[in-house]
């Protein structure tokens, strides 16, 4: 039974199918994992920026600029994951 399974795995591997499938799974995990933290981070940034803007509408311009800066820094991490997902090749 175990031997048959091994033979099956080897046969599939020779066809390159297993590697392709694992690469696809790896890409998905890399981007999905990289998106968790920045997702939470951008939510916090925008949420707090909205609070700040509604409390002090006269400072909305400054808050908006700072918000975009914060988003840009946070988002970079997710984008590294996005690029890495393409770099991984089977």
């Amino acid at each position, binding site marked *: 039974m175990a031997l048959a399974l091994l033979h099956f795995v080897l046969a599939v591997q020779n066809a390159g199918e297993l590697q392709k499938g694992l690469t696809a799974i790896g890409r998905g995990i890399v981007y999905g994992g990289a998106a968790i933290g920045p997702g939470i981070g951008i939510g916090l940034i925008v949420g707090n920026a909205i609070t700040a803007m509604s409390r002090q509408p006269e400072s909305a*311009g*400054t808050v908006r600029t700072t918000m975009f800066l914060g988003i840009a820094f946070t988002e970079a991490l997710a984008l590294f994951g996005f690029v890495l997902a393409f770099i991984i090749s089977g």
Partner: protein
Amino acid sequence: MSILGVDVPPITHVTVWPTGPLGLNKTALVYFLATIITLAIFFLAGRKRQMVPTGVQAVAESGVDFVRDQIIMQTMGVEGLGYLPYLTTLFFFILFSNIFEIIPFFQFPANARYGVPLILALITWVLFNVVGIAKQGVGHYIKNTLVPPGVPKVILPLVVFIEFISTFIVRPFSLSVRLFANMLAGHLILVTFATLCAALFAAAITVVILPFSFALLVAMTGFEILVSFLQAFIFTILTAVYIGGAMHPEH
């Protein structure tokens, strides 16, 4: 690549084109056009200067005003006004090479290829280091950059190491990857919905779902206009922030 029966073109088909005459492909063509448009706007605006701006001059002046008020005054203050020409050029060049993402028959943001964003980021890297060294001197600049004030002696080596990596190595990388990956992701989203529309159109039954896919394609195109503008803005404002940070040591 086939997902749920829809043939999505592989990434190489989406971003790589056959090379035409003189080694010109679509990316190079878009960059040439973006350069020409940027030059044309400012040359035409500067040729016949009027007290009350009209036409091209009004566009150019509102662009310069935008960069001055929203980017330089917010980050560097009056001292940074000397960098206005460079930052304005940077902003408009990136904006125009991005905006080709939604212009019919081009529909490719040139910055979805990594080369030019990397060069732009390296120019920024050289610029803020040169400004820092010129304003503060080599020793002071390195000390002010690497040693943040008020750090306990015990963890100082670690902090210096982290600051070195994040300032001198990660900055140009993240700056260029941010622009590149945002444009590539936006382009892929548009490609996905466009391919989906085509695939739904092909089969008789699935045509009923076509409007939803098409509506999302249109909505995403609108969103990509915002992203093109926002990425040009973010690249420029980050350049301004880095230069501003190099001009003044943190207290």
